[in-house]
C-alpha cells in the first residue's frame, strides 16, 4: 500500500460535507482488497465490512472536507462565496481554488482589495470573507454560463513532501485517518482477528457528526474506535492545547469509556507505541460524540493523529506517526475477543 499515493489522491478528490460522493467512491475502492463487503449509504458513509465472529467494532474516520460555496456572481465576473465548515478567512487571500462548475472544475484565485488602497484601520484587520472574491479570468457572462450559486469551491494546493517524512496537504483532516484505517486493514489481513470489523468513512463531520450518527445506527456496533486529527505543537499553539507531532494521542474524558481506554493504552505499551495523552473535559469535537450515544450507547475510544495548521490548505502530519497509529489500531482490534466487555463496567 502506497500511503503517500493514497493521501495525495484522496486529498485532491472532491468531497465537501454533504457532497462526498467522489471521495466516497475513491475510498470504497481502496478498502475492497481488505474486506468482505463495501457499501456506500445515503449519507455517503463508506462502510467496509471485514467479517468476524467476535465483538462488532466500528472504526470511524470522516471523509468530508471543509470548503467554500459560490453565493453570488458580480457583474464584473468575480465570484463571491461562503464557507462550508470552519474555513479560516485568513488563509484565503492569494489562495488558488477549483470552482466546480457545470462543465467541470475551473481554476481560480482568491483576490482582495490591494493594501495601499485601504485605510489604516482596514489594513490592521484581517480580510473578511465577504470582501474577498474568486477571479476566474472571465467575464460575468461567461462565468454565469458555467457557474451557479451553490457550486462548490475547493482548495487547489498540491500535496507537498517536507523533511523527516512529514507531508502537507489540504484535507489531511481527516483523510489521513482513513489512511490509518486502510493501513490497519492491510495489517489485519496477516493478523489473528476475531472481531467483526466495520471500517466507516463518515460524511458531514465538519458540520456536526451527522454521517457518523446514522452509520452508527446502521452498523449497531458493540464498541467503537474513532480516529481524528488533533492539534500538533506549532508556534502560537503550545503544550496547553497541543501535543508533539511524533506520537499518537489518546483522550481522557466523559465521552471516552475509561476501561476501554485503559485497554488501548495497555495495548500501546505492550507494542511499544509511544503515546501522548490529552483531556476533553466535555465533548471531543469528533464523531465519537455522536457514536457514543447511538441507539442504547456505544463504548468508544479516540485515537488522534497530531496535525499542524488544522483547517488550512497546508495541514501537516508525520507519516511515521500515521504508521504508529495504524500499528496500534491493528493490535487493538486483533486483541478484541468475546471477553472485551467482561470488566468494562465494574
Amino acid at each position, binding site marked *: 500500500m502506497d500511503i503517500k499515493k493514497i493521501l495525495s489522491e484522496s486529498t485532491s478528490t472532491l468531497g465537501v460535507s454533504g457532497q462526498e460522493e467522489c471521495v466516497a467512491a475513491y475510498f470504497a475502492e481502496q478498502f475492497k482488497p481488505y474486506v468482505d463487503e463495501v457499501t456506500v449509504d445515503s449519507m455517503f458513509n463508506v462502510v467496509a465490512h471485514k467479517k468476524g465472529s467476535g465483538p462488532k467494532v466500528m472504526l470511524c474516520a470522516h471523509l468530508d472536507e471543509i470548503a467554500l460555496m459560490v453565493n453570488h456572481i458580480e457583474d464584473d465576473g468575480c465570484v463571491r462565496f461562503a464557507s462550508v465548515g470552519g474555513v479560516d478567512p485568513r488563509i484565503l487571500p492569494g489562495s488558488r481554488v477549483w470552482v466546480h462548475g457545470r462543465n467541470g472544475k475551473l481554476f481560480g484565485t482568491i483576490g482582495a482589495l490591494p493594501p495601499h488602497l485601504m485605510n489604516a484601520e482596514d489594513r*490592521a*484587520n484581517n480580510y473578511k470573507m465577504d470582501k474577498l472574491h474568486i477571479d476566474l479570468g472571465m467575464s460575468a457572462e461567461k462565468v454565469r454560463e458555467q457557474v451557479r450559486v451553490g457550486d462548490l469551491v475547493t482548495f487547489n494546493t*498540491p500535496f507537498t513532501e517536507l523533511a523527516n517524512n512529514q507531508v*502537507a496537504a489540504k484535507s489531511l483532516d481527516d483523510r489521513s485517518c482513513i489512511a490509518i484505517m486502510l493501513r490497519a486493514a492491510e495489517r489485519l489481513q496477516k493478523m489473528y482477528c476475531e472481531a467483526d470489523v466495520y471500517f466507516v468513512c463518515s460524511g458531514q463531520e465538519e458540520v456536526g457528526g451527522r454521517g457518523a450518527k446514522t452509520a452508527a445506527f446502521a452498523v449497531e456496533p458493540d464498541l467503537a474506535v474513532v480516529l481524528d486529527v488533533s*492539534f500538533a505543537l506549532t*508556534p502560537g499553539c503550545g503544550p496547553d*492545547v497541543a501535543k508533539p507531532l511524533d506520537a499518537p494521542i489518546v483522550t481522557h474524558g466523559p465521552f471516552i469509556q475509561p476501561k476501554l481506554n485503559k485497554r488501548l493504552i495497555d495495548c500501546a505499551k505492550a507494542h511499544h507505541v509511544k503515546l501522548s495523552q490529552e483531556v476533553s473535559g466535555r465533548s471531543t469535537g469528533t464523531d465519537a460524540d455522536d457514536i457514543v450515544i447511538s441507539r442504547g450507547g456505544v463504548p468508544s475510544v479516540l485515537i488522534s493523529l497530531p496535525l499542524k495548521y*488544522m483547517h488550512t490548505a*497546508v495541514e*501537516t502530519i508525520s507519516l511515521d506517526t500515521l504508521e504508529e497509529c495504524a500499528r496500534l489500531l491493528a493490535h487493538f482490534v486483533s486483541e478484541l475477543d468475546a471477553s472485551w466487555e467482561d470488566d468494562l463496567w465494574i
Partner: protein
Amino acid sequence: MDLKTLTEINAPAGHEQPIRRVLIEELRAKGFNPYIDRMGNVIVVKEGTGVAPRKRVMVSAHMDEVGLIVTGHAEGGFLKVTQAGGIDPRVLISKRVKVGDDNIPGVIGAVAIHLQSAADRARVMGYRDITVDIGANDKGEAERKAPIGTYISFDTPYVEYGDGYACGKAFDDRVGCWTILRLLEEELPCDLIAAFVSEEEVGCRGASGAAFSQEPDIGIVLEGTTCNDLGDIPEVAQVCKAGEGVAVSFMDGSSIANRDLFKKALEVGEKEGIAHQVKASVSGGNDGGVIQRAREGVPVVVLSVPCRYIHSPSTVVKLSDVEAQFELCRALLKTF
C-alpha cells in the same frame, strides 16, 4: 525562453543570482555580450540602424521579486522570517514556499481556527508571528538547512486560465524582462540599452547605478503595476484594468512622466492600434524615479502591465496586456 520559465525562477530582492544566470545564458545564446555591473545589473547595448548620432534609449525592467528572508529559528524547528520587498503578511497564511537555493519545500501555517479567540481572528498575523515550516525536527536542523539570511520564494507554478489570463508569482517584473528579451530581437533605429536591473523591490537600487553608468538620452521603464479592477470596485478606485492594454503612467509615486514621452506613447498606441490605457492613479513607485534623476536628469516614461493581486503568491495578468507592452515599447522605440 518564455514567461513561465522567467516567473518560476526564484530570485527575491538582493538575491538576483538565479535569474541573472538564466538571463546571461539566454543573452549569450542570442549572440549578445552582456555586461554585469557592480549592482548586479545585466546590461546589453545593441546598436541601432539609424545614422549617428543616434539616441541612446535605456529600456529597463527589474529582475528581482518580492520574497522572504530567514531571520532566526524557533524551538521545534520553525523558521522566523521577514519580507524582502513589500509583502502584505495577510497573503502568506496557508501558502507553500521554496526555501534557499536548494528549493527546500516549506509551508506557512497558522494556529487553527478552533483555537482562535475573537481578537485573534481580527488581528493580522505579522512577521513577528509568521513562521515557515520545512518539517525540521528541531531548531538545530532548521539552522543547518536554512541559516539566517536564506531567501524564500512563493511556490506557485505559472498557470494559464480563463480567457487568456495567467496566474503566478513574480510577474512584477518578469513581464518586463521578457519584453526586453523580445525587443532585443528587433531592428531599431536607436541604440537600445537593455537593462535588467536589481533590487527594485527594496528601493530601486540597481536602476540608479545603471542609469548613472549608461547615461541614456531617454529612459523607458517596463513594469507590472497594481490593478484593482475586480471585486465590484467603484470606477474611481480602479488603477487600471487587466485586459485593456499596457498602462502608461502620467505620474506615479516616484516620478512625473516626461510630458512629450507620455504624449508620444499614447499617440503611437493610437496610431498603431495597440491596446493601451492611462494608469488612473498616482500610486506605486518604480525605477522611473531614480532613472529620471540620474546625473543631470533623463526623460522617463513608464509602461506597465496591469497586475491583479500584485506582490502576492498568485498575481494575475492578461497575456494580451503583456503583448501590448511589447508592441507599444517597440513602436515607441521606432520613433527615436
